[in-house]
């Protein structure tokens, strides 16, 4: 039939079975895959429940209200052995957040410095940065953590020979002890003053920007902001009669007592994660800067913009668009790598959860909590970075 050739392909009636229709076939395949998946999940779930029942293991999340019975060395909130398992998990969660946030900040700073250093025209700086990147990037993170932990323990002295640092700080193999501020009544005014100073600084900076746009005159932003943020709280402090005192660490029987202590576990995990992740961030930064076309800086030079300003106003903003997406992955990696804390006894979510798992035997429940928490943390970081990326993206005019 020669007429068939003139009919458009979309209106072609199936001559045989409808199974030959690619649309129908596609739906059938998808339905089969979905059915198989649902069946697999159902089978795994029922089988797990059945096996748990047969092994006489209780299930459910009720155990979270039970008394923990164990102590945690490092805790941001009050925790005793009388607290609940649920609270212990919160302690572990906060410790994970603490090391992740501080690690991300430090890794970003080191990473940017090293990344820019690799592009430096100074031979020594460029080569040193290269060695740094190649060393830390090529060692497993667990080894970096062990390196810092044994390093910290081996190099630092015993408590009785603590090294005294300025400002009444001491360092020994039990950690870094520093004076803890004790706030008496009236101290809140200093805090309010600080908040007011920060808000005022933001307004001043905006005003200065507007002024520069209108008149071309530049106001001394840096000095005004410094004066506000340091001066105003200081004046308030003196005016209210210095209601802040310090609890200074002093030598006790076993260790320094008083003050606050940052344990060697946190220190070494924080240093290890920062240095490890920074080596990847450095490469991302270098790639980002290299990714900006050379013509951009040449154009800026041609307009008479100074080299420092060229980097700050022309190159970096464009490089950021390349840097941010892979940077997000590194932040997620750092957060997830923090679970290696278990190797050196830092009480993070995995370590505390593992202890609870062992005391209660609620393996399925604890593992599910771990998964949900890390998933939530990672997705939140991703969302934030996506928002930041959208903000930094090239605005087409």
């Amino acid at each position, binding site marked *: 039939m020669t007429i068939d050739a003139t009919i458009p392909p979309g209106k072609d009636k199936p001559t045989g079975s409808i199974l030959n229709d690619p649309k129908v076939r596609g739906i059938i395949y998808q339905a089969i895959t979905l059915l198989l998946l649902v069946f697999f999940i159902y089978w795994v779930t029922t089988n*797990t429940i059945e096996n748990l029942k047969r*092994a006489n*293991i209780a299930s459910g999340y009720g155990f979270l209200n039970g008394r923990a019975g164990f102590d945690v060395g490092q805790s941001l909130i009050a925790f005793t*052995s009388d607290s609940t398992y649920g609270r212990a998990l919160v302690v572990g969660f906060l410790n994970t957040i603490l090391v992740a946030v501080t690690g991300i900040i430090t890794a970003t700073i080191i990473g940017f410095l090293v990344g820019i250093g690799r592009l430096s025209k100074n031979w020594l700086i460029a080569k040193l940065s290269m060695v740094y990147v190649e060393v830390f990037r090529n060692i497993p993170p667990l080894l970096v953590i062990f390196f810092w932990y044994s390093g910290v323990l081996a190099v630092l002295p015993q408590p009785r020979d603590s090294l005294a640092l300025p400002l009444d700080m001491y360092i020994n193999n039990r950690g870094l002890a520093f004076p803890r501020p004790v706030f008496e009544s009236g101290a809140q005014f200093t805090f309010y003053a600080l908040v007011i100073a920060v808000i005022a600084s933001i307004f001043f900076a905006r005003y200065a920007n507007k002024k520069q746009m209108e008149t071309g005159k530049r106001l001394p932003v840096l000095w005004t902001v410094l004066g506000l943020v340091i001066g105003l709280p200081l004046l308030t402090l003196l005016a209210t009669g210095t209601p802040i005192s310090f609890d200074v660490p002093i030598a006790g*029987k*076993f260790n320094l007592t008083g003050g606050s202590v940052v344990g060697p576990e946190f220190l070494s995990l924080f240093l290890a994660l920062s240095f490890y992740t920074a080596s990847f961030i450095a490469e991302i930064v270098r790639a980002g800067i290299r990714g900006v076309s050379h013509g951009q800086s040449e154009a800026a030079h041609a307009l008479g913009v100074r080299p420092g300003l060229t980097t700050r106003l022309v190159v970096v903003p464009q490089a950021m668009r390349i840097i941010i997406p892979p940077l997000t992955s590194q932040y997620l990696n750092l957060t997830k790598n923090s679970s290696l804390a278990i190797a050196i006894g830092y009480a993070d979510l995995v370590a505390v959860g593992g202890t609870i798992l*062992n*005391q209660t035997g609620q393996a399925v429940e604890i593992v599910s909590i771990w998964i949900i928490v890390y998933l939530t943390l990672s997705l939140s970081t991703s969302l934030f970075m996506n928002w930041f990326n959208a903000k930094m993206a090239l605005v087409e005019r």
Partner: protein
Amino acid sequence: MAKRILTALIGAAVMGIGTQAASATTLGDVKAKGFLQCGVNTGLTGFASPDASGNWSGFDVDYCKAIAAAIFGDATKVKYTPTSAKDRFPALQSGEVDVLARNTTWTINRDTALGFNFRAVNYYDGQGFMVRKSLNVKSALELSGAAVCVQTGTTTELNLADYFKANNLQYNPVVFEKLEEVNAAYDAGRCDVYTTDQSGLYSLRLTLAAPDDHIILPEIISKEPLGPAVRQGDDQWFDIVSWVHYALVGAEDFGITQANVEEMKKSTNPDIQRFLGVEADTKIGTDLGLENDWAVKIIKAVGNYGEIFDRNIGAASPLKIERGLNALWSKGGIQYAPPVR
């Protein structure tokens, strides 16, 4: 770690039906695969530790061998799974190991909620403290403010919290998952005090850089009955594991040793005849699912309880732990076996 638990869980979920179908009993499974899978410590001198060529030895290891000897008549038919304090329970729950002989304290929680069964206590222990001599501490009550190294997932960790709370003492727990990590941290001076079962302290002291610089404080703050654990729901297997221990204690009671067991078979004492399965028409072993000379096989393989104790942790070993509570009931201890009758 998490990965390991997950593997165990998924293993439990996926393998569950498979193993169930293959054989209804643990004994049947063990016989079918031809060896005993035994969960032991990752390395605790005297209790379970591998030598340079990977051969395991120790007090707990001898229990694995004794069970294998009772089943197969061959003490070498054992495969060892080294487990940390934390992953030992998932390993047993999931069926990764057939029996857990790993300095495990018998507690009501483990006996019920965790789904295990304990009966035979092969070592009566208690928790103690070890400190550096240079600290001049004579009693655990002087330990307020100390940093204490402890292994996570143990009864030790809980007893520690209870003891310091009950005595109004402050402390800073330094918690690790693996025994080796706790040892290294204590040796490096990260903490002032090391706490675990006293038998463990004697064993660990030997591995420190300068064992003589450390003392074990006199206080014992807990009861730690250690024994082999099995999963609930298989009474025959539970009986076999329990009775291997009772056979070892019984043999010491009768004075039957690895050297004289063949000779003792000719004994005219009816108790010994029944115990060694030489009594006419006996069903002493077949009722357990084993052969009638199961006790002979055990003793030939590892000796009696006293021999195991002396060889691994007692007078003939570097640990030199006193028998103490673990002496026979007839010699001032509380080791006691039910009659074989």
